[in-house]
C-alpha cells in the first residue's frame, strides 16, 4: 500500500469538521468535557518552548547508532594518527631498515607482532657471526650457498629436506618449490648427483634459521658459545629474531624495508591534512563568494557567468591539468583540488541567501539598523550550517580519493612523502602476490576513514534539518 498522504487525511478531517458545524448539533456526550480552572504554571508552560536548535540536532544525531559508532571510531583513529609517533618503540616512517650485519634492506617482511621469526629447540647447533653487542649474537645455520648449476651429491633423502655434500661441506638442502632441485625418478636411492638452476642454501640442520639467507639474532644468555666464538649451542628454546630488538613490524615492511605500520599512519596524517585543508578552503572561499554573490546585486550577473564557465569543466580534468603543470607537492594537490570545489558551495550559499535575504525578520533587522556583517552571521548563516557541514564532511573523503587517483596517474606526491595514495599505488602491484598485505592495510584504513566521513556527514545533515526534530 502506498501511504495515504498527510494532505488527504487532513482534508478528510476538515470536511468532517465542516459537516459537524453545518449540522449545528451540540457535542453528543457532555460528560466527556469538563471545565478547567485557571492554572498559572500551565499558563507559563505554554508560553515557553524548550526547543534549542543545537540540542535537538545533537539528540537527533544520537538516535543514529551507526553514525555515533563511526564517529567514535573516526575520532579514535584521527587521535591515534597523532599519538602514534610518540608511542614507544615506533620506527620513523621514512626510515629504511637495514640488516645490521649485511646492510641489506629488510624488504617485504610479513606482518608480525614481534621480531621473532622462528624458535630453535634446545641443543641446536648454530654458527655465530661476528657482531659486536653485549646482549645479542648474530647466528645462522647456513653452511654455504651452492652456486646455480653446481653438482652436489645427495647423501640422504627425507622428503622436504635432503642431506648433500659439495666438496668438503656437508649439510641440509630444502627440497621445495623455490629451489627446484633436479632429482632422479627414485629420489630415495641415495647417493646420486643433483643440481638446481638457482643458488641453493645449505644448512647445518634440516631447518632454515635465516631470514632469506640473512643472520638471525638470539640473546647471548640463551646460547653456549664456544671459546673461538665461531659456533654455539642453544641451551633452551631460543627465539631467533630478524632484528636485535623487540618491536616488530605490525603491518610488515614494504619493498625497500620501511615499516608499513609507521608509513600507514604517517600517510593517513598526510591524506587527512589534505582532506581537512580542502574542506576548510572550500567552505571558506565558498561561503565568502556565495555571500557576496547573493548579497551584492551588481555582482550577480558577472559571478553567474563565471560560475557557468567554471561549472562546465570537469573537476577531474582541472585536477589533472594543474597537477601536470605544477610540481607535485602537498600544496599543489590542495591548490588543485580547491580550484573548482568551492563553486558548488558558493552556488548553494548564494541561492539560500537570495531566498532568505528579504524575509520579514531580515527586513526588520535592516530597519533597526543592524550592521550587515551581523545580519549575515546571525540571521543567515545558521540556516546554512547543516549543508555547509555536509559538504565539508563529503569533501574530505573525495579529496582523499582524488589523491589516490592522481597518484595512480603519476602526478601525485613524491614517494618520499608517505600518503595513502602512494601506499596504495605501491601496494597495487603486489595484490596478486603473497605480499598483498602491502595493499590491504592501507586500503582498510582508507576505507574506514572515507566511509565514516560519508556516513557521519549524511547523518549530521539529516539531524541538522529542523524537519527531523521532534
Amino acid at each position: 500500500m502506498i501511504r495515504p498522504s498527510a494532505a488527504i487525511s487532513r482534508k478528510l478531517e476538515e470536511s468532517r469538521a465542516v459537516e459537524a458545524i453545518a449540522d449545528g448539533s451540540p457535542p453528543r456526550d457532555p460528560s466527556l468535557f469538563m471545565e478547567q480552572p485557571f492554572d498559572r504554571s500551565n499558563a507559563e508552560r505554554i508560553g515557553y518552548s524548550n526547543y534549542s536548535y543545537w540540542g535537538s540536532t545533537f539528540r537527533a544525531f544520537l538516535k543514529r547508532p551507526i553514525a555515533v559508532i563511526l564517529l567514535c571510531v573516526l575520532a579514535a583513529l584521527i587521535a591515534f594518527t597523532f599519538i602514534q609517533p610518540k608511542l614507544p618503540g615506533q620506527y620513523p616512517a621514512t626510515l629504511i631498515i637495514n640488516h645490521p650485519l649485511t646492510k641489506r634492506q629488510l624488504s617485504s617482511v610479513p606482518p608480525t607482532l614481534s621480531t621473532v621469526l622462528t624458535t630453535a629447540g634446545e641443543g641446536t647447533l648454530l654458527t655465530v657471526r661476528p657482531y659486536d653487542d653485549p646482549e645479542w649474537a648474530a647466528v645462522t645455520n647456513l653452511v654455504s650457498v651452492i652456486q646455480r648449476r653446481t653438482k652436489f651429491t645427495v647423501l640422504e633423502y627425507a622428503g622436504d629436506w635432503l642431506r648433500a655434500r659439495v666438496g668438503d661441506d656437508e649439510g641440509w638442502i630444502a627440497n621445495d618449490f623455490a629451489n627446484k632441485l633436479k632429482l632422479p625418478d627414485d629420489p630415495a636411492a641415495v647417493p646420486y648427483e643433483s643440481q638446481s638452476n638457482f643458488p641453493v642454501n645449505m644448512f647445518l640442520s634440516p631447518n632454515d634459521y635465516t631470514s632469506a639467507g640473512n643472520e638471525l639474532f638470539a640473546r647471548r644468555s640463551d646460547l653456549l658459545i664456544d671459546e673461538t666464538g665461531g659456533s654455539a649451542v642453544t641451551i633452551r628454546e631460543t627465539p631467533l629474531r630478524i632484528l636485535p630488538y623487540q618491536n616488530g613490524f605490525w603491518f610488515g615492511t614494504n619493498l625497500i624495508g620501511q615499516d608499513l605500520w609507521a608509513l600507514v599512519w604517517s600517510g593517513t596524517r598526510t591524506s587527512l591534512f589534505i582532506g581537512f585543508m580542502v574542506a576548510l578552503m572550500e567552505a571558506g572561499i565558498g561561503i565568502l563568494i556565495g555571500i557576496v554573490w547573493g548579497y551584492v546585486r551588481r555582482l550577480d550577473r558577472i559571478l553567474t557567468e563565471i560560475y557557468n564557465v567554471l561549472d562546465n569543466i570537469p573537476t577531474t580534468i582541472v585536477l589533472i591539468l594543474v597537477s601536470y603543470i605544477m610540481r607535485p607537492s602537498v600544496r599543489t594537490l590542495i591548490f588543485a583540488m580547491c580550484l573548482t570545489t568551492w563553486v558548488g558551495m558558493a552556488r548553494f550559499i548564494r541561492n539560500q541567501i537570495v531566498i532568505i535575504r528579504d524575509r520579514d525578520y531580515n527586513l526588520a533587522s535592516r530597519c533597526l539598523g543592524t550592521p550587515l556583517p551581523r545580519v549575515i552571521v546571525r540571521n543567515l548563516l545558521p540556516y546554512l550550517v547543516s549543508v555547509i557541514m555536509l559538504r565539508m564532511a563529503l569533501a574530505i573523503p573525495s579529496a582523499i580519493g582524488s589523491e589516490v587517483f592522481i597518484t595512480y596517474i603519476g602526478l601525485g606526491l613524491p614517494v618520499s612523502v608517505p600518503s595513502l595514495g602512494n601506499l596504495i599505488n605501491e601496494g597495487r602491484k603486489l595484490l596478486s602476490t603473497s605480499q598483498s598485505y602491502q595493499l590491504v592495510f592501507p586500503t582498510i584504513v582508507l576505507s574506514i576513514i572515507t566511509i565514516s566521513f560519508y556516513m557521519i556527514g549524511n547523518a549530521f545533515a539529516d539531524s541538522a534539518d529542523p524537519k527531523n526534530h521532534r
Partner: protein
Amino acid sequence: MTRYIVKRLTAAIITLLIIISVVFILVRQMPIEGYFDNFDKLDASVIRARLVQMGLTDPLPTQLKRFLLNLLRGDLGTSSRYSVGVPIGRILLTKIPISLQLGLSSMALSLLMGVPLGVAMARSQTRYKARFWDAIGTVFIVFINAVPAAVYHIYLQAFGSRALNTSMLFSREQPLTWVLPIVSMSLGSTAYYAMWLRRYMVDELNKDYVALAQAKGVTNQKVLARHVFRNAFVPMIQYLPTSLLYTISGSIYVESLYSIPGMGGLLVDVIRRQDNPMVQILVIIYSCIGVVGLLLGDMLMVAIDPRISFAKKAGAR
C-alpha cells in the same frame, strides 16, 4: 525557445573559447622537454631551431590564434613523445572506437542495473516491512560513494579476473576480458542512477496526485509505472547526454588499469610521458565534452518536460 537555444549556444561557445585559451596558456608554462622525444641528446642550438620551427618562440597571442585556427580546420597538431610526429587526430581515431564500445556497453549495463534498483528501493519504501531492497541498495550506494573508485577497481580487477579465470588485462580478441572493465565502469553510474531515481521517486510518491490516483482505484503498479516513474525520470534525462558523450572519452582510471587502448588510458599514458601537445588536446576534448553534454542535457529537458516554459519569469530578482 529559439532565442533560448541561441543564447545557450553562444554561451557554450564563449565558454569553450575561454577553456581552450586557458588550457593553451597553462600548458605553455610547462618545461620545453615535453616537445622533444630525445631532449637530453640534443644540443642547445638544435633545440632553439626546433622551437622556432614549431612556432613556440612566437608571442603567446600569435600562438593561440594559430592554434585556434588550426583547431577550426580540424588540425589537432602532432604528438611529440607518445608516437613521434604522428597527427593527434589519427591517434584519436584508433582510440575512440574502443572507448565507445566499452562505454556504451557500460552505460547500458548501468541503466539496466541502476534504474531497476532505484525503482525497487523506492517501492520498498512504500511497504512497511519489506525494506530488503532499500537496505541492499543503500549499502551498495554508500559503499560506491564513500570508498574511492581508485581502490575498489583494484580489488575488482584482481578478484574478478581470478573468479572468471581470465587475464587481468584487456584483450580485444577475448570477449571474457571485456566483462570486468565494463562492470567496473558501470558501478559508479549504477549507484548514481539508483540513488537519484530513488530520491525523486520518493518525492513524487508523497505528492497529492498519487493519493488521488489511488483514491480513483488505480493499482499501485500502474501508479508507479505510469505516473511516479515517468515524473521521477525526467530530471535524470538531463544527465544522459553527458554520460553518452563521456563514453567517447572512456574512463581514465579503468582504461589505464586494464591497459585498454582507449582515450582514457591514452590520457594517463601521455601524462606519464609528458607529451605536451597531446595532454593539451585531450584536456580540451574532455572539457568540451562536459560543456556540450550539459548544453544537450538542458535542451533535452526543455524538449521533454512540458513544465519548463519560456514565458518571462515573474519575480526572478
